[in-house]
């Protein structure tokens, strides 16, 4: 896991109160929703809000590849890194 993926994993655990999960317990390639971490759409909203506050850009669902953005930790970290302000 890259340093930035680690940072995003920590953010997910912190924002969503996933107290029973550690960063090491997240597979960077595994699905965040449904399977894997089992997040749902409410979590996606919470994460999008914190992403906009910390990384200075708005997540959009109608990005053509939206399903890919939240598909895994690696995909999410990649999307944030590519779109972050500054």
């Amino acid at each position: 896991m890259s340093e930035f993926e680690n940072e995003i994993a920590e953010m997910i655990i912190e924002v969503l109160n996933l107290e029973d999960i550690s960063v090491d317990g997240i597979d960077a390639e595994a699905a965040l929703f449904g399977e894997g971490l089992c997040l749902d759409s409410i979590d996606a909203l919470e994460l999008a809000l914190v992403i906009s506050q910390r990384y200075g850009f708005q997540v959009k669902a109608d990005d053509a590849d939206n399903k890919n953005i939240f598909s895994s930790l690696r995909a999410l970290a990649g999307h944030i890194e590519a779109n972050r302000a500054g």
Partner: protein
Amino acid sequence: MNPYPLIARNDFDRVWIITAEDQLTVGEVLFQARTLSQQLPDHPCCLLLCEQRINFIIGFLAALWRGQTVLLPPNRLLNVTLSLLDDYPDSYCLTDTDAGVCDAELFRYDYGTAVQGSITEVPLIDSTQQACLVFTSGSTGKPVANAKLWGDLVRGARLLQLRYGFTEKDYLVATVPPQHMYGLETTVLLPMMNPVSVYGGMPFFPEDIRQALSLSSKPATLFTTPLHLRICVQARLSWPELRQLISATAPLSREDGIRAEREFCAGLGEIYGSTETGAIASRNTVNEQSWTLYDDVKLLFDESGVRVLARHLPHRPILSDRIEALDDEHFLMYGRTSDMMKVAGKRVSLADLNHKLNAIQGVEDGVFMQVEAASGDVSRLCAVIVSAELSQADVINVLRQQIDPVFLPRPVFKVDTLPRNETGKIPRSEMVKLLSILMDR
């Protein structure tokens, strides 16, 4: 048995559905609906899974035109879809995504790839036609059907219109899915009967919502939920001019109402309703604590609970909220009765969740609880279990197969024993005490 026209608007050249790419007039929507109705598979029931509102509206019109009953699932989880197909073997899926459903007959529709045209033909639909079955997640995890006749849907939507008085100057945007009764009434049925425009997409993140609201020069009405309002208020976006905000699915506090009105510079109204009844009352959250019933809707208090009397609700559904009548038109609402809980607009029985939890092999004892959330937050459920062999993740893995994801306990705590009293019950005070210790741990 009076028939009602499929749409009660004859402004065929006016824009009905707006998307980021397109604007479809009433005549164009009708053309799409008629064409699709002729192509739909020959089955009595249509499981309408379309995610984009424009595809949903056209699919809904087409199925009605064809005389089919539309099945509206509580969510798009595969096990829910399969369970519905199991219960209604004479159905097929109408969808606009690639999400495949094994075994079922699948019909793909996307307005963007369909042939374009415009007509002024409006069919009459028998008022006793079974228009749709709206499913709730159901306390047993198995979807529960709420049958709606076409005539009753029309009459219910008229009451909604009587309260809000939408005109051709209105543009409606919603964050709620059209499969949900609230989304169906406000963004599908109401625009079928009134000269409004509606956004054809499914905006989800605050930026999606902002863009959708900006697509028309008409000031928009945003139909949303307490959750989305809170997220939007925190998103620090610059919002276009709105006509009003309308929230439903869970009561909003006065403080959250004030925050939302300030952020959007628009008035906020709330709708009270349920899948069984549709919308039946409204309030101006910032100025009113009490709810005002729609015209011709009455509440009847009898031994079985609070029943709703209205011409379009002949079976007199019972409300599952605690209600106090103030007079014939006004009431106060105090949350759910008995063990029913609500998370993110979905209802679930606590007893049923506890039963499922304790039925898991390896769980010696367990209990679900709803954690009181900070104002406006979604109150999630958590669970406390006693188990020698299972981890928290094991328990979640089993539950995930059986219940809607919003009800999954977050987190699951493990303890040595639960504070049951001599009758086997867990006093709420004991549970609150235990939780506060676990949360601080």
